[in-house]
Structure formats: C-alpha cells, structure tokens
C-alpha cells in the first residue's frame, strides 16, 4: 500500500475517521513510517483528557468504558477508546473482544473505538498505545479512554500514560488484606467498585475506603474516592464521570498536572530509547555483534559493553533515521 504520510496526517487532523483508522494501523506496525507519522501528529495533540481503566479480567472494564463514553457524549464530548487485549505467547495472535461490550457505540460517529493486542508488552498496554492516544487526541477526541488488558496485581504502565487512572474492582475476589497490598490499587485516582448489586459490595467499598484513609493525608491533594456502579445497567456512572472531571481540575489547581505530564513524557521517551537500543543491538550495521562475542568470551564485562554500545548507538541511530525518512523537513537535517 502506498501511503502519503503528509496527506494522511492532514486528514487525521481534519477528523476523518478512515484516516484515523489507517494512521492507527501505521503506528501499530511500527518502524520508520510510524515514527514519521507520530512526529507529525504530536504537536497537534494535548487537548484531550486521557483516562485509563484497569482491573482484573472480567471486572467490567469494557462495559464501564462504554457507559462512560455514552455519558460523555450526552455531555457533548467526543470520545476515543483504545482497548487492549492479550496476544498469544505461542502464536502471537489474539482475540480482541472488548468491542463486544461496546457494539452500540458504533452507531455514534462521535465515538471511535480501536482494539489492540499487547504484542508481548508486559505492563498491561501495547507498544503503540501512546502514539495511538495522540492520534485520537489530534483527531479531535476530547476524552480518550485507554482500557488495559485484564491485569493481576503489578501491571502499572497505565499510570505512565493516563492523567486519571480508574481501577475497577468487583466483590468476591478476596479479603481486606488484598486491598492493603502494594501494586495496582495504589495507582488509582478513582476506585470503581463494579457489579455493586452483588453481595459484599459494600464491604469492598469499606475496605478500599479504609485503605485510602491509612495513607498520610497531608501529602495528597487528592484522596481517591471509592465509587460504586453497575456498569451494564449504566447505574452510578454520573458520579464517576463527575469525579474524573474533578480529578482533572484538582490536578490543574495543585500544579500536579504538570509534574504528572512530565513523568508521562519521561517514561515515554525512555521506552522509545529502549526500543531503539533494542533494535540496534545485533544490527549488522554496527559492531554490536563483535562486542557481544567479546562478552561471551569473558574478554569484556557486560557493564562496560553496555556503556560502549550505548555511546556508539547514538551515532548509529541518528544516521539510520536520516537515511530512512525522506520526509524529514529539510531545515532540521541541514541544521545538523
């Protein structure tokens, strides 16, 4: 498929759904075209509020995303949803089933839903998620919801992407000690207890509230509220969306929005740098193979090797990118 990234980027910015869909394919495919498109889009993004939804499998994350999207539409916001499901560790394939819970959103042109597979990423998201959020943001979506895979206790990458993180719990999965543990529950800006019509829901709400109270209150401008809902019946959704709005306002007022944004940006740049390094090590275009051989023969230490490779990678990556992206604006390359 021949692809004109300039016109694709322009169409995405104009809000074309088909262009957005193609752009998402480009960034998911990765490589030079993904990088070039991302760089063109990035400066036009930043207006959307990014909300992460995470929690164990079957807690109702997709159903909650649908309910929040429908309410946001009533309130006049356009919505983008990135829904992540796991890739097979064996075949690399996936069944992306989050859309099943959101089928009626397809009838609303103000909502755009995209399913993505984890592709081996371990933190609950997928490699292209940050670029995908930017594309939706630049296409004019005012609320972007990112739904993680069903997580266990430790997949916390969403806190390095979303401005507001919702952690969804359901009754019946454990006692108060589970709520005391470190990990996923700690990253919640909002706790959502879904399926609240089930027995023991109030107990879970009380447990989560008591944990929030144990944290030293002076350090925090925002104490994560615990909100109950029955997402499938769209009950209790208004207070949740209200709390998202209040959280965004609290972040802005306390100045935390800026520091959080810096943290998100730092994590993102680090991930990209790691990826560049990963693809450069073992590339025949540099001497990494020879150096790895020396480490294997214990002729060179692994720490020293890593430092030398890192230094030589910098030059290598620069050269490879200039050669690979003919669309780079001329003034940037001549400035070097």
């Amino acid at each position: 498929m021949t692809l004109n990234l300039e016109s694709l980027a322009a169409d995405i910015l104009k809000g074309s759904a088909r262009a957005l869909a193609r752009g998402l394919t480009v960034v998911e495919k990765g490589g030079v075209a993904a990088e070039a498109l991302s760089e063109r889009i990035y400066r036009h993004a930043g207006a959307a509020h990014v909300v992460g939804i995470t929690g164990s499998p079957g807690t109702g994350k997709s159903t909650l995303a649908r309910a929040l999207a429908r309410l946001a539409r009533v309130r006049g916001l356009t919505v983008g949803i990135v829904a992540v499901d796991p890739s097979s560790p064996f075949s690399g394939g996936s069944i992306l089933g989050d859309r099943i819970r959101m089928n009626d959103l397809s009838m609303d042109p103000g909502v755009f839903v995209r399913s993505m597979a984890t592709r081996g990423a371990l933190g609950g998201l997928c490699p292209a998620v940050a670029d995908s959020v930017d594309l939706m943001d630049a296409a004019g979506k005012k609320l972007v919801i990112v739904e993680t895979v069903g997580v266990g206790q430790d997949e916390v990458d969403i806190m390095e992407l979303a401005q507001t993180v919702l952690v969804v719990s359901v009754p019946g999965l454990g006692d108060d000690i589970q709520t005391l543990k470190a990990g996923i529950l700690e990253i919640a800006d909002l706790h959502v207890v879904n399926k609240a019509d089930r027995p023991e829901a109030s107990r879970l709400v009380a447990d989560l509230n008591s944990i929030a109270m144990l944290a030293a209150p002076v350090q925090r401008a925002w104490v994560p509220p615990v909100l109950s809902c029955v997402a499938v019946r769209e009950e209790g959704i208004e207070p949740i969306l209200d709390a998202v709005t209040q959280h965004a306002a609290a972040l802005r007022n306390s100045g935390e929005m800026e520091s959080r944004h810096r943290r998100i940006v730092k994590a993102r740049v680090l991930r990209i740098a790691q990826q560049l390094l990963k693809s450069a090590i073992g590339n025949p275009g540099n001497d990494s193979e020879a150096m790895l051989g020396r480490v294997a023969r214990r002729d060179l230490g692994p720490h020293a090797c890593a430092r030398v490779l890192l230094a030589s990678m910098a030059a290598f990556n620069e050269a490879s990118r200039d050669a690979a992206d003919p669309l780079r604006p001329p003034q940037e390359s001549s400035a070097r």
Partner: protein
Amino acid sequence: MTHRIRVLIAKIGLDGHDRGAKVVARTLRDAGMDIIYTGLHRTPEEVVTAAAQEDVDVIGISLLSGAHMTLVPRIFELLKEAGAEDIPVAVGGVIPDDDVPRLRELGVASVFLQDTPLDDLVKRIQELAASRQSR
C-alpha cells in the same frame, strides 16, 4: 515492526449460533492473526463501522440463518459509504450451493462452506489480506 493480519469476525442478524465463528476465530488466532470478534446479533451497520475503525484486512461474516442474500448486499453498500470498499469480505456458514455464485457476484471474495478444511481457511485469509496490502 511487522504487520499482523487483522480480521473482523462477525455474526449478523438473528442467528444465535456462534460455535463456527468461534472455531474460525480461534484457528486464525493460532495462525498468528489479530481477530476482532464482535459477538452475536450485529447489524450490518455495526459490522461495517467496526471494520472501518479497526482497519481490518479481511471481514469474515458468519451466517447460519439463511438471511445472507439480504444482509450481505447491505454490507457492501455500507462499505462503499464508509470509503472502506477495499476491505475484502468472506462469508461462511450455512450457504446453499446455488447461492455461492450469487454471493461471489455481489463481490464476496470467498465463501467458506461447512466442509472447508481449517488449513485452507487460513491460507485463503492470508491471500485475501495480502491482496489488500498490495493494493
């Protein structure tokens, strides 16, 4: 860095049987594809919007209800409206032999009957995806 084939598997209309669709979804998953599964009772409108947003390489429609000659033409109309007519459509399920050429005439790229070996199915989907990629 590589493109993984994306396939939408959809059940449209009043048809409550999804075992076949699930077998196909699972088989294609095990062949390394990303499968977007829409679940039961979808409308053609929902299926086409999903296919367009997901930018899939192939749409696979499963029908056991006998309504294929009504619902499949509607899919093609809507794909055109959505500017997504480049996505090939495959149909599978209970399709009378006489209807196979009629579906092909409508533009269906492949019709998979119940006796289709799963290996053939995988190969054909790979071909359809490749034909779209090279377009």
